[in-house]
């Protein structure tokens, strides 16, 4: 302890510990609070902290995803969900508290029990670092030509898992379509005229700054999304994060200019199609590989002469598929939540 405190490892450990304490504090606060609005904000903070922590743990890609999901779109979607329910959580039965506490304690005890035999943090000889992980680090360059090992693993080595995850996202979107609906297309004619006149009248209002800034921001966000998409091979990022970012830009548009305007720009039918299309693009790459004589998602077949070019090409298309589905499903959820009338209101409680 003495004197060695400022060696790098220990210094980072301090940062890790502080973030961990913050996470625990925020977590407990979320459990204890009843005000759903405060909980939404706290969960936003939770993901900010965890993303920062992930960076300090050197898990940049995870932090990137956490940032894209937790900070922006998740908050908006949770607010959308809140619109459909009440402001405050209903009190739970005490018996449930105890049951939950027992389960949580048992789970924690099992995890603590396991920690004794866990490899120490960062141990280069531990199984995850020494075995397949090391193999990935060695092989990614020659096999795929992609500098970012994480991208190579996600989109190529374990590309089939990513295909599955994309399908999970589509399934979630499908669930929203089936249970909540998309709220139909934009309420056109009359309403849009009304919107225009309203827009004209409110020019003088103080929202004008916001609107102008947003109009500036939206293209920047989209360009940034494109950067994340295509830079994914080199740095953190990829189709999933890019999809979230692009969806966020449309959410921002909807927040400022109204859901009808957003639906005119990006109609629900298009979004529905997009959700399906992304998975089809991803699977389509696999099917093409099949037709070219390889196994499913065997990108080498795309360019047999230069397998690494084939890999790069395949990863690019696959990431586009992910982008399309993710962005579409996020909008499906946003449309589904926001264009639905609440079943219950505060007065019901």
């Amino acid at each position, binding site marked *: 302890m003495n004197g060695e405190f400022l060696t790098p490892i220990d210094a980072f450990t301090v940062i890790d510990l502080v973030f961990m304490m913050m996470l625990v504090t925020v977590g407990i606060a979320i459990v204890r609070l009843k005000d759903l609005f405060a909980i939404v904000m706290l969960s936003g903070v939770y993901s900010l902290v965890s993303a920062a922590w992930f960076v300090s743990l050197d898990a940049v890609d995870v932090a990137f995803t956490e940032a894209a999901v937790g900070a922006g779109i998740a908050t908006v979607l949770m607010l959308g969900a809140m619109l459909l329910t009440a402001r405050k959580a209903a009190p739970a039965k005490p018996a449930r508290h105890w049951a939950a506490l027992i389960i949580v304690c048992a789970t924690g005890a099992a995890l603590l029990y396991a920690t004794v035999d866990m490899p120490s943090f960062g141990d280069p000889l531990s199984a*995850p670092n020494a075995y397949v992980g090391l*193999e990935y680090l060695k092989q990614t360059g020659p096999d795929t030509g992609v500098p970012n090992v994480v991208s190579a693993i996600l989109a190529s080595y374990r590309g089939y898992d990513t295909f599955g995850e994309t399908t999970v996202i589509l399934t979630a979107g499908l*669930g929203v379509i089936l*249970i909540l609906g998309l709220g139909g297309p934009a309420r056109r004619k009359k309403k849009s005229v009304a919107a225009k006149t309203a827009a004209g009248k409110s020019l003088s209002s103080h929202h004008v700054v916001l609107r102008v800034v947003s109009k500036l921001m939206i293209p920047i966000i989209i360009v940034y999304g494109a950067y994340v998409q295509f830079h994914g091979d080199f740095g953190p990022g990829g189709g999933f994060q890019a999809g979230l970012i692009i969806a966020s830009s449309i959410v921002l548009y909807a927040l400022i200019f109204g859901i009808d305007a957003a639906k005119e720009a990006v109609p629900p039918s298009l979004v529905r199609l997009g959700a399906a299309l992304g998975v089809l693009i991803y699977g389509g790459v696999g099917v093409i590989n099949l037709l070219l004589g390889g196994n499913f998602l065997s990108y080498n077949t795309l360019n047999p002469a230069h397998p690494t070019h084939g890999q790069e090409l395949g990863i690019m298309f696959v990431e586009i598929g992910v982008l399309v589905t993710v962005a579409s499903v996020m909008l499906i959820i946003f449309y589904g939540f926001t264009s639905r009338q609440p079943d219950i209101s505060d007065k019901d409680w």
Partner: protein
Amino acid sequence: MNASFAPDFLTWLPAWLVMQSAALLVVMPLLSGPIALVLSRGRLAWTWAIIISLATFAMALILYGQVLEHGSVEYAFGDWAPPLGITYNIDALNMLILLLVAGMGVLSLFYGLPSVLREIAPKDQAAFFAAFMLCLTGLLGVAITGDAFNVFVFLEISSISTYVLIAMGGRQDRRALTASFHYLILGTIGATFFVIGIGLLYMATGTLNMADITAQLRLHGDDRVVRAAFAFIVIGLGLKTAMFPLHTWLPNAYAYSPTVVGAFLASTATKVAFYAMVRFTLGVFLPGSPFSDAFLGLVLAPMAVAAMVICSVQALYQTDLRKLLAYSSVAQLGYMLLGLSMGTMAGVSASLLHLFNHALLKGGLFMGLGIFALSFGVRQVQDLRGLGKTMPVAAAAFAICGLSLIGVPLTAGFWGKYFLITAALEKGWWWAATAILISSVLAIFYVGRMLETMYLQPAPKTKGRSKKITAKAPLLALIPLVLLAVANVWFFVDASLPKGLADAAANVLFGGGAP
């Protein structure tokens, strides 16, 4: 299995198709989901789903042929060799499940059209079939894969689509929404436990490929991380399997979901989760380690017995037909878990055989109820009155499946119980055999009550709808039901297919020489 049985149809087919059948088996229904969503017309989407499900079943048959010929099949995605990439590994154990799920998928879809047209809003029908195909995909994907994390991914596909499908019963009965929500909460906890378990396993072994995990565990030995992983995985999958104290989601979920969903899930979903449990407890973790033996014998077996007895009693007291069958399902899962907890080849083989038969008979029972519900709005036991005369064919098929549930000889259900008792006696677990018998006797009562009401009580003089006339069940729905009833008799007479597969599967797990 005998190689001389290998069907020569493999030689007629293009080699390419045979080689890719493992991938196509899952990828075809997966891609058909989004396409069905785009088709956006109910009947069109249904036709499409039927075509794909038939093709999927054909792929399962091709794979079966390969398994018969080679014993096992491996398919590497992206042509990446196992520890790096994801592989599908098909052996007798998952072949049984694949055949079952693919077959039930076809039957359920044929069965489903009339009820879907009735129960689901027209604008949602295409999306409904898309969700159905994704559910099928997820179940197939869990069963076929040889990669531990891939199990999780496909488990999620099947779970999320299942939540959605169950919630679609909300148009008939709003309670479907709470049932679905309840399942969602518990299912998510289960999935989380499962993924924690996988994470711990990765921590201990550094690999995700199941066969490789086993190999690493053999080198690495047993430690606390592995034990914790075992416990997390069993509990996580236990929630999905509706293992006894974790089954609370199941009765409502089955009772309020759309009829076709109830029939499909009852015959496949818990079975696939149970398969995953068998695969992990005996196939991935080293069988015979003191910890896993203790866990199976001291934790799983009592739970299984409790499920068999307590849930059979609960089934006795149900008035809602689908809940009755759902509780009976939990009890029957107890049989399967009991066979697993024996940890012997005979026990596992018996429980897989019971799994197969139970899928056939429970699917048939739910389909029968669906037909009755479609024609007469039957929900309660007393609503069955007089149906023996008004719908003779459907009622007879329902009755056969019911007898099979009891385990009467001349029906397939008999074999599962027969071999379970044999396995229990061989292990010296006379108390387990007793529990099986008690539960079977209870089954006589709850099945008997349904059949008696159906055949012996006169039809009520209903307002408007007269039950006097013989009602025509929708033919499309009736055919799968009758097929299942016939299968229930056929697999008594000639149980060599399921029994052979179950034996070969148990052989895979216990490694008793080449299959």
